[in-house]
């Protein structure tokens, strides 16, 4: 990302400009507003707009219990909203809530919805808070610089404290690899190696059909095929369509060939990747860590992970969740204290057992507990050394929908890769122009 500077750099270079705005907005001297935690006997009520499933709720309920040991008179309402309607719908819900004046202090959202929320102007910049809070700096020190990158505001401000994250990584069935005499794939393997393995693993016909690979046919899941080819759906600063890049065509043709030329992957529409993989009807697929909860629950142990096969690079994709504070929050320092507990080492460790996400701290993601399953679990954290965030402009939902719709045309042979990408490029260019117009006004 050429123009972007890391959060750390940013804090070093600027800092004071928005700090003054922040302090004056709350009528407090800067120092007291940020450095001092509220008195522990304070009576207050905080509302958190959270996302995730029952497992998230349990982790954060424990965190709230710890928070209440310090602040016994603060009630925390932790609202859990299933994000089944996509991040667009989730964001709309939040905006409606804020517009209606319903108390909303802390918001958790994934990167896909983060920039729409920033663009709406609902969030408070947290740069100064981070600068003043040792605990938050410690979180950052134990984290990986790449993680903060994706959530950094395009205006140069920091609005989010990173929570868990996920990447895309190849999952493979160790038994099937052994049976095919393939052994452990090399972390430096290439697209060609991958295709060769997939061809070897694809066997049978009809009821006995077994696939070498199942294409992860969702926006996040496809990105590594572009990143490893040194390209992406958008340009580096997420302002323009990059679909006219010949490398995009090359990647898309490769994906297309996996189904239509090599037959190593089933057709992508409505395919249940997890079902095919765990029923051993596919030897490879790709997820982040979120399916491990299911592997563990069903005692599916013959699985391991390996980095994405390389073309030009080994760059995969990640998405992270973040904590933000709204501009309508009444007690910002208290909200910060809550976020500190949400990002504490205890919370991070607590989350490991669920196998749904990768902790944002090095110490947790490389802990013995985390590394116990699968064999190469360390690849999760190590992927951060060569990784890019999922492109998440403020019009994420629109952008991803345009791309995936045309990918659908291509995969169903309604359009050729050339035609499909060209049509997508035209539509996406118009969408990105509209976004630029919206952001400037």
């Amino acid at each position, binding site marked *: 990302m050429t123009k972007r500077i890391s959060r750390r750099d940013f804090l070093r270079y600027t800092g004071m400009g928005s700090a003054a705005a922040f302090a004056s907005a709350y009528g407090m001297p800067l120092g007291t507003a940020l450095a001092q935690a509220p008195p522990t006997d304070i009576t207050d009520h905080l509302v958190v707009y959270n996302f995730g499933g029952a497992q998230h709720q349990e982790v954060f309920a424990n965190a709230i219990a710890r928070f209440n040991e310090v602040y016994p008179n603060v009630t925390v309402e932790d609202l859990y909203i299933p994000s089944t309607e996509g991040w667009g719908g989730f964001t709309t819900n939040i905006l409606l809530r804020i517009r209606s004046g319903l108390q909303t202090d802390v918001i958790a959202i994934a990167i896909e919805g983060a920039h729409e929320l920033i663009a709406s102007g609902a969030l408070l910049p947290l740069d100064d808070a981070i600068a003043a809070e040792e605990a938050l700096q410690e979180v950052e020190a134990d984290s990986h610089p790449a993680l903060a990158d994706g959530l950094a505001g395009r205006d140069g401000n920091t609005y989010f404290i990173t929570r868990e994250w996920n990447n895309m990584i190849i999952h493979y069935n160790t038994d099937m690899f052994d049976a095919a005499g393939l052994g452990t794939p090399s972390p430096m393997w290439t697209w060609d190696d991958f295709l060769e393995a997939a061809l070897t693993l694809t066997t049978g016909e009809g009821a006995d059909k077994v696939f070498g690979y199942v294409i992860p046919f969702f926006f996040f899941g496809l990105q590594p095929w572009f990143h490893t080819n040194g390209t992406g759906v958008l340009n580096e600063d997420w302002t323009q369509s990059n679909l006219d890049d010949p490398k995009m065509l090359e990647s898309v043709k490769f994906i297309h060939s996996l189904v239509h030329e090599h037959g190593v992957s089933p057709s992508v529409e409505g395919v249940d990747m997890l079902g095919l993989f765990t029923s051993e009807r596919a030897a490879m697929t790709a997820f982040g860590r979120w399916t491990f909860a299911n592997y563990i629950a069903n005692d599916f142990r013959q699985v391991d992970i390996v980095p994405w096969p390389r073309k030009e690079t080994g760059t995969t994709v990640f998405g992270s969740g973040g904590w933000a504070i709204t501009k309508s929050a009444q007690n910002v320092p208290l909200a910060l204290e809550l976020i500190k507990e949400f990002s504490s080492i205890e919370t991070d460790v607590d989350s490991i057992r669920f196998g749904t996400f990768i902790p944002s701290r090095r110490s947790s993601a490389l802990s013995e507990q985390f590394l116990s399953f699968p064999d190469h679990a360390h690849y999760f954290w190590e992927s951060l050394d060569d990784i890019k965030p999922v492109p998440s402009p403020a019009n994420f939902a629109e952008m991803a929908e345009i791309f995936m719709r045309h990918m659908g045309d291509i995969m*169903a042979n309604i359009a050729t890769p050339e035609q499909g990408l060209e049509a997508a490029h035209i539509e996406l260019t118009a969408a990105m122009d509209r976004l630029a117009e919206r952001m400037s006004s």
Partner: protein
Amino acid sequence: MLSPKRSEALAGYLFILPTFIGFAIFILYPLVESLRISFYEYSILGDSYFVELDNYTRLINDSRLRKTYSNTIVFTGFAVFFNAGIGLLLAVFLNRRMPILMRNFYRSAFFFPILIAHTYIAVIWQYLYQQDTGVINYYLVALGFDPIPWLSHPAWAMAAIIIMDVWKNTGFAMLVFLAGLQSIPHEYYEAAQLDGANERQLFTRITIPLLSPSIFFILVIFMIGALQVFDSIIVLTDGGPGDATRSVVMYIYQLAFQRLDFGYAAAVSWTLFLVIMAVTLFQFLVSRRWVHYE
């Protein structure tokens, strides 16, 4: 004392009052509001701008709108025909003399799918529709047919949606028809049988005319429902592949909740509103020729 005519009118207004209060608050007001929004570039948190007819002129060049309309019309034609037709067939068969337990069993079986939300039904059907590992194709191949690309071919994907929709909803048509059939006094049939009418004559001369209010109701309701189809599609194909199975309401939903383009979404909804209104009015006009009350 009110005259009988006046007291009847008064009773009529009082009887519809609760419905109209709710209607005004929860339907009419939001509807008018959505009309207002359709003239704006509307933003939930930021400023909204009055853009006159811009949202309506955008309709003209929107090729996706045309595509989603044609999908919706195809879906509506097939879904209404099969839902109503199969529902009627089942109801007529069920209305025959049979042990009450048998009838209850069949009726419950046909109605069962309605009880389950679309989301979960789609999960089941996705297993059935898988191209290479699916249940349906397994049996097709076993019978010597070629496997069908259920979800990855545009026309088959639409067929897959219609089949699932009929599977889920025809039970409702069956139920309404059955209730209608049961309210036809048996004496009519018995009398006609005495007059020597055969089964087909009973069906066309007694069943159909006396059932016509139910048939009319089902046609109108299923037509309106089908023109607004959303759940059956979003959970099975999400409109894909490409836009091959996307309906108008899915497009509206996408415009509003994914693109936050509320103004244009409202304009598109008003076109749909007018189309459905025209179709329904037409049905009501034609109904005078074939629907018999009493």
